[in-house]
C-alpha cells in the first residue's frame, strides 16, 4: 500500500532534462523521475516533439463578421464604411478577446492511494521505492502526473492555471495565474497535500468541492477533474450540473488501477476499505463476477453521466501512458478556443 508522502518533494533544478523526451511519456519513465515537476516538463516536451509542430496559435483581437442591423442594436457598432459604400446598415462584429483559464481538480481521497503496480515496474530503472518511501504506483501518483502536465502545457502558452486538491472538501487551492511562480505553487500543492495521513479515510464529496471552487471562479473556464469517481453517481451529476449552470467546460479524467478493473486476485485475504468501509473476508475468485458487474456498471454510469452534460470523458489506467489523455486535452482546448472565436 502506498504510504502518504511525508512532505513536498524537493526539486532538482540541476538535473538536466532527458534528450529524447518522448520516452518519458510512458509511466516507466515518469516513475523514474524523482520529482513530478520535472516529470511534467518531460511529459509535455515529449508530447510537443511528438506533434512536430506547435499546436498553439496565439490569441488576438480580430474582426469576425458583419451582420444586418436590427432595431435595438447599439449604433456604436455600425460599420460606417460599409454604409458609405453599400448604403446598408451593417453591424461590425469582432472576435472577443478570451482568456483561456484551466482549473484542475485532483482527487486525493483514500481510494486514490490504491495502486497495484510496483514502483519498480513503473520506474523501470530498478528503484524499488519512491523518494517518499512508497513501493507502489498509486492512482494519485498518476493523477498528479497528469495534472502537472496539463498545468505545464497551459502555462507555457501563457494561459492561466489553477489547481484544487480535494477529498471531501478542498484541501489545497492554487488560484489561477499565468505567472512563472504559479508552476511552483501548483507543484507544491500537489506534493504537500498528496495523501496526508489525515486523508487516508477521507471520502469524496465532489459537489461540495465544486461549490467551494465555483466561489473562487469569476469567469468561465475549462475545469479538468481527475479522480477515480468512486462515489455516488447522483452526487457526480449534481456536481456536473453546477458546473454546467455556471457555463464551465469540463474535462473528466477517471483514473483507475488495472487490478480494480480486472480483480484477478486468488489469495483469500481480507479486504480493507481505504475510505473507512471496514474489513471484509472474502474469496476474490468467488465474488469476481459480481464485482466486475458492479464496477463495470458504475464506470458506464459515470461515462453516461459525464456525456449527458456534453462533457468529455477519459478513462485512464495507471498502467497506461499519458499521451492519449494529453492529446485529448489539446484537441479539446483547441476546439474550445475555436468555439470562443466563433462567438
Amino acid at each position: 500500500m502506498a504510504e502518504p508522502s511525508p512532505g513536498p518533494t524537493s526539486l532538482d533544478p540541476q538535473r538536466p532534462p532527458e534528450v529524447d523526451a518522448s520516452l518519458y511519456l510512458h509511466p516507466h519513465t515518469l516513475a523514474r523521475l524523482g520529482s513530478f515537476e520535472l516529470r511534467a516538463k518531460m511529459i509535455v516536451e515529449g508530447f510537443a516533439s511528438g506533434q512536430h509542430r506547435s499546436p498553439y496559435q496565439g490569441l488576438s483581437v480580430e474582426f469576425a463578421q458583419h451582420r444586418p442591423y436590427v432595431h435595438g442594436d447599439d449604433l456604436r457598432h455600425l460599420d460606417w464604411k460599409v454604409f458609405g459604400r453599400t448604403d446598408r446598415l451593417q453591424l461590425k462584429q469582432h472576435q472577443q478577446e478570451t482568456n483561456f483559464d484551466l482549473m484542475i481538480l485532483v482527487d486525493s481521497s483514500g481510494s486514490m492511494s490504491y495502486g497495484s503496480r510496483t514502483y519498480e515496474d513503473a520506474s523501470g530503472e530498478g528503484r524499488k521505492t519512491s523518494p517518499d518511501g512508497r513501493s507502489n504506483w498509486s492512482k494519485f501518483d498518476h493523477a498528479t502526473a497528469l495534472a502537472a502536465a496539463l498545468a505545464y502545457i497551459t502555462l507555457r502558452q501563457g494561459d492561466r492555471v489553477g489547481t484544487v486538491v480535494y477529498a471531501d472538501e478542498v484541501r489545497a487551492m492554487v488560484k489561477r495565474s499565468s505567472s512563472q511562480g504559479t508552476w511552483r505553487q501548483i507543484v507544491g500543492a500537489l506534493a504537500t497535500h498528496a495523501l496526508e495521513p489525515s486523508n487516508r479515510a477521507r471520502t469524496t464529496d465532489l459537489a461540495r468541492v465544486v461549490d467551494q471552487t465555483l466561489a473562487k471562479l469569476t469567469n468561465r473556464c475549462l475545469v479538468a477533474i481527475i479522480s477515480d469517481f468512486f462515489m455516488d453517481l447522483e452526487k457526480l451529476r449534481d456536481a456536473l450540473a453546477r458546473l454546467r449552470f455556471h457555463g464551465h467546460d469540463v474535462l473528466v479524467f477517471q483514473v483507475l488501477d488495472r487490478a480494480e478493473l480486472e480483480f484477478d486476485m486468488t489469495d483469500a485475504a481480507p479486504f480493507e476499505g481505504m475510505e473507512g468501509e471496514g474489513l471484509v473476508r472474502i474469496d476474490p475468485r468467488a465474488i469476481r463476477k459480481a464485482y466486475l458487474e458492479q464496477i463495470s456498471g458504475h464506470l458506464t454510469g459515470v461515462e453516461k453521466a459525464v456525456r449527458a452534460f456534453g462533457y468529455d470523458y477519459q478513462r485512464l489506467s495507471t498502467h497506461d501512458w499519458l499521451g492519449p489523455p494529453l492529446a485529448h486535452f489539446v484537441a479539446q482546448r483547441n476546439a474550445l478556443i475555436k468555439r470562443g472565436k466563433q462567438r
Partner: protein
Amino acid sequence: MNFLNPGLAAIGLACIAVPILIHILMRRRRRPVPWGAMQFLLAAYRQQRRRMNLEQWLLLASRCLIVALIALAIGKPVLAALGAAEGIRARTVYILLDNSLTSQTSTSPGTASSGEFTALKESARTLLSTLSPGRGDRAALITLAGPARADVLPAAPDAAQVAQLVERTQPAASRADIEGALRLTRQAIQEEKDAAGSEAVVVVLSPFRSGAMDLARTLESLSTTSRPVRVIAESPAQTVADNVTIARAQPLRPLLITGDAGAAGPGTGSIPVRIELTRSGSLAQGVTQVRAWLASSGTQPPAQTAVVAWTPGQRTATAFVTLDARAATQDATLSVETDADALLGDNTFIRPIESVSTLRVALITPTLSAGASAIDTFASQDWLALALSPQTPNPLRAADASGIRLETVDPARLTAGAAAELSGAATIVVTQPHTLDAGGWRAIAAAAERGSFLIIVPPEAEAAHTWIDACVQALALPLSLSREPTSVGGDEGLALAPQSTLPPDEDLLALVRPELEELVKPVRVRKVLTLQPRSESAGTPAPATLLALADGTPFMISARTPSGSLVALWLAPPALSWTDLPAKPLMVPLLQELVRQGAGRSGPQRTLTAGNALRAVTGATELASTDGASLIRIAGDGTPLEPLRSQGLWNLRANDGRTLSTLAVNHDPAAGDTTPQRAEDVERWLSGLSREVSLLTSAPTGEAPAQSALSARRSAPPISFPLLIAAGAVALLELLLARWFSHAKVETSAGTAATATTSTTGSAAA
C-alpha cells in the same frame, strides 16, 4: 457403535478439528489487503453473501467428513451390516454347556474344583469374551444336564450377562441330553430374527466321555438351506478316570414291616439291600468299599460295609448288605456310599424306606368261609385269606406273625358308600369283582389313587366276565381281557413258567423267582382269561407279565393306573375249578410276596433318576427339598414345573403343607461312565450336525482355544475399506465442489471491465 481400534478412532475423530483450526488460523494469519473500490466489493459481497456462506459451509463440512470417514475407517466400526460386507459377520453363538454328572469328572480325585466342568465354564467365558455386541454378536446358553435347559434363549446381545449365568451354572446329577439341547438349538436357529448376514456358531462344551455322549446315535443336521451353521466342540477328554458308580441300591423289600411291638418276627428287624455297581476307566484290579446305613429321625447308626473286589476288566458288581431296621421309623432313609474316585457325584445313593407296623390287607368279598368249610368247597377268597394268614387259625382275629393284618369288606357296603373302610389298607384284594357296581369300583379306584396296591381276582363261577369293562374303565387300566375263559392244556392243564423277562426292578416276584423253579412244577392251570392289550393306551406302560403259563400265556399280570398305583391282575382265580395252584405250596409264598412287594411299590414314587420325569402324585402341589433350600411347584397335571436334575431328598407336599411322601433323586447311573472317547470319533459324530466342525485346540500363540476358534474367521483387513472408499468419494466431491466454488472458469470470461476500459481509452485515443 463399537470399534475394533477404538483408540485410533478417537484420535481420528479428534482430527476433525484440524480443518476447522486450519480455517481459523488461515483467517488470522492473513494480513488485510487495502482496497480502493470497496463499495463495489461490498455490494457484490452483499449480493453473493448467502451463496458464498453456503459454499463455505459445504466445503468445510465435506472436509470434516473426509477426516471423519478416514478416522472411522481406521477405527473400524463393527456394525452388523458393515461387518457382513467385510466378512466379519455378526455371530450368534449357541453355547451347549455340559453340566451333566459326567462333566464333573476330575482327573485328581477328591478335588471337585479342578474338575472338567470348571474347565468347560472357563472355555465358555473365554469364548463369550470374544463376542462384540456392537457388531451384533449374540449368545445363547443351553445346559445339557438332562433334560436340556435353555438358560438363555433366544440369543441375547449381552454376552457379559450370559457369562455370569455360565458362572452360576451348577453341575447336575443327570445325564447329558444332547438331543434335547440340539432340538432347542435347531428351533432357535430357525426362529432367530434378523439372522440375515449373521453366522450361527454352535459350541458344544463337553468332555465327551461315554457317560455324556452316546456316539452311536446319529445327529440330525443343524444347518438350513439359508443359514450354514458352524460347530465348534471342546476337545474330548483323553485322560483315564477310574470311576465306580452306584447303579442301584435297592432293599429287597421296599416296604419295611416292623411288626407289633415286641413281636419281632423273622425278617422284620432287618433289611437286605442289594447294591449294584458299575465301573469305568482303566478297569484294573482293585477293591471298592461300599458303606450303607439306614438313617432315621436324624440318627445315623453305624454303617454296614461290603467290599467289592474287582478283577481286571470287570465292569459290574453286586454287593449285599443287611441293615438293622429295628430302630427305623417312618422317615427312614437308606444311604449308600462308595470310596472317592474320579466322579464324586455318583458315589452316594439315597432312598426313603417306607415302614409300617402291620400291613393291612382288605379282602373284598361277600362271604368268607375259611376255617369252617371243607377245602373242596373253598372259594377263591377263602384260598386267598388262607394264603395271606397261613399261621393264624382265624385270619380275621389278629395280625399274622408275618405282619399282615387281614380285613374283609363286603362289596355291598362299598356300594353303599362305606369307602372309608378301605382307607389305610396297603393292599386291597378284590374277589368276586362281578358283585361290584360302579360305586364300588369308584371306591376302589379312590383307594388306588391314595396308593393302595390292588390284587384283582376273577370270579370263578361266572361264565361271562363282564365285570372287566367296569374294572378297566374305573381304574383306567391299559389293557383289555377276553370275557370268556379259555381252556388250556386240556384236562391236564398247563404248567406255570418260572422265568420272567421283567427287569428286577419291575418284577414283584424277583425275590422268590429263584425258588419258583421248584414250586411251579406241581401247579397246573386249566382255564385262563386271555389278555388283549389295548393299542391306544400309549401314555401308560403296557402291562407286565408276572407269571406266565408254559406256552407263554399270561397268568398274572401287573399294570399301573395313571396315578401310578400298582394293580396285579390274576387271569385265573385261585379256585380248584381253574387251577390247583391254591392247594400247592406255591400259593402262600406267591401271595405273601405279591402283597409285600406290591404294597411297597404301589403308591407315590419314592426314587427318581435325575433328569427323568416324575410320575404324577395326586394331591401334591409342591416339591420341597428336605434341606429347605429349594421349592418346585407342581402343575395341575401332577408334573413339576422344573425337572429334577440334582441329587437330594424332596418332600411332596399337599396344598395344606402336609407331606404326602418323600422322594429321593439320585444320579443317572448311565452318566457315570467316564470312558474317554477318541477325538476323531467325536468329530465324525458331530459332522452330522454341520459340514464345518472343528475341535478346540490350543493355539500356538498362547491364546485360549475358545478365543482362537472364534477369531479364526477374523482375517479381515485392519481398516474398513467401505469407509475408506466413502472417504475417497467425499474427497472427490470436495475437489469438484472446491473447483466449482472457486469460480476458476470465470477466468476465461474475466476482464469485462478491463476490456471495456481499454476499448474506451483506445477509442478516445483514436
